[in-house]
């Protein structure tokens, strides 16, 4: 097998004093979609943030296209070709929609073809309309689109998407699903955090269940039916 796009082993992370991740292990092949499942507060968001170097402190190993990033500064990690769409969306209030869109720079190490503005506006016509209004005046759904759209312009080939379907109308969720399928077809590697199983199930090649900051289950899409019962138990409230 070739070098995985993303390979994480024994990852620990802290917020201040709380020890959130207790040794996460996972790996994603290029062009794959991996979905992180788990209950609220299980540590999925934290996993994504740790990959980007945004947690308080972290230990272990995170390799992006084979290069170790555990000691790297956040902006350098990004330049290896990572695009991060945070759970809280991170739309900047003092920037217009377009400025928000243009904020992330082209990544030097990005391997994907950056999308043009035209392509993006074609994919999300709403954004074209609201181009000049302040970022946080957009509706929740539009903000979500903007948050995803802006990392497609950068040439990032590994996308970290945190609950992008959250709070969106079904039509938009469908748009996003189509988009992810398209991106996958174009060779993007995608790590998703999802609550919405119906959204995630058909897209993912691989599932990882996180519980209390540890990976408790990891299986390929094909194994899904077999794992269903286990999954119910893990995700039940």
């Amino acid at each position, binding site marked *: 097998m070739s070098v995985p796009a993303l390979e994480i082993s024994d990852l620990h992370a802290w917020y201040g004093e709380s020890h959130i991740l207790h040794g996460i292990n996972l790996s994603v092949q290029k062009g794959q979609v991996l979905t992180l499942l788990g209950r*609220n507060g299980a540590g999925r968001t934290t996993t994504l943030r740790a990959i980007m170097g945004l947690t308080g402190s972290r230990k272990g190993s995170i390799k992006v296209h084979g290069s170790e990033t555990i000691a790297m500064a956040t902006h350098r990690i990004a330049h290896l070709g990572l695009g991060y769409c945070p759970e809280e969306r991170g739309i900047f209030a003092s920037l217009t929609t377009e400025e928000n869109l243009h904020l992330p720079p082209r990544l030097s190490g990005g391997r994907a073809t950056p999308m043009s503005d035209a392509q993006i506006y074609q994919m999300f016509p709403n954004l074209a309309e609201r181009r000049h209004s302040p970022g946080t005046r957009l509706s929740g759904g539009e903000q979500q689109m903007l948050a995803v759209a802006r990392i497609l312009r950068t040439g990032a080939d590994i996308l970290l998407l945190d609950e992008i379907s959250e709070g969106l109308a079904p039509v938009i969720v469908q748009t996003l699903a189509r988009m992810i399928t398209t991106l996958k077809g174009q060779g993007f590697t995608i790590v998703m955090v999802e609550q919405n*199983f119906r959204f995630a199930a058909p897209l993912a090649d691989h599932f990882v269940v996180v519980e209390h900051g540890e990976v408790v289950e990891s299986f390929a899409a094909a194994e899904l039916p077999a794992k269903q019962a286990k*999954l119910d138990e893990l995700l039940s409230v």
Partner: protein
Amino acid sequence: MSELILETRGLSKDFKGFTAVDGVNLRVQRGAIHALIGPNGAGKTTCFNLLTKFLEPTRGSIHFNGVDITGEKPAEIARRGVIRSFQISAVFPHLTVLENVRIGLQRFTGTSFHFWKGLTGLKQLDARVLALLELVDLRDMATLKAGDLPYGRKRALEIATTMAMEPTLMLLDEPTQGMGHEDVDRVTALIKRVAEGRTVLMVEHNMKVVSKIADRITVLARGAVLAEGDYAEVSRHPAVLEAYMGSEAAELQGAH
């Protein structure tokens, strides 16, 4: 006295055009353990901040024991017996465990502005403090600096300090967050124990905890109340499943 200890009417908070809490009517029964749940960013902490006036509500009113307390200052509300804990642990790190709790008790002595007095007057509180520490299994750590405690023990200390205030209403923001399994169980039991004779309103993500001790649950989503009821009702509520617990998960589970 009415059965409702706390009631909000149309409570709302806007942040620069974004509504974090939107017309919430919360009704907390006296003597209940009431849980506030909801997805991240639903406005739970903001709600707490409004109730304790750490934030100024944009609209709506807050009634405590039938009295409108919307216009009061945070410290006044606290003096009414509405005591909160914080999502991120809030102890006084350089004070000892004992002193941490005593700060709470001290307010009742009326000597807090007495800068010319010694501490001997406060020593008489120590017995009470130790009793409270006993309650949370912290008695043998009384002389340690609070900052040196393990995380879970800090949360326990926070609860003890809150208890010291003889609160009629305790607001606990994610009391089990960032804890290991044993700690979670301990704190759950602790809450159950201290809730006797008072009212608890808590924010909690851990459904195990909620299902075990909550008498009543309000589900918040996008700043508004989505559902209310006991655990069985709420966990069956379709909108809640959709917005919080995940619809598919429920479907897969079948009717829970």
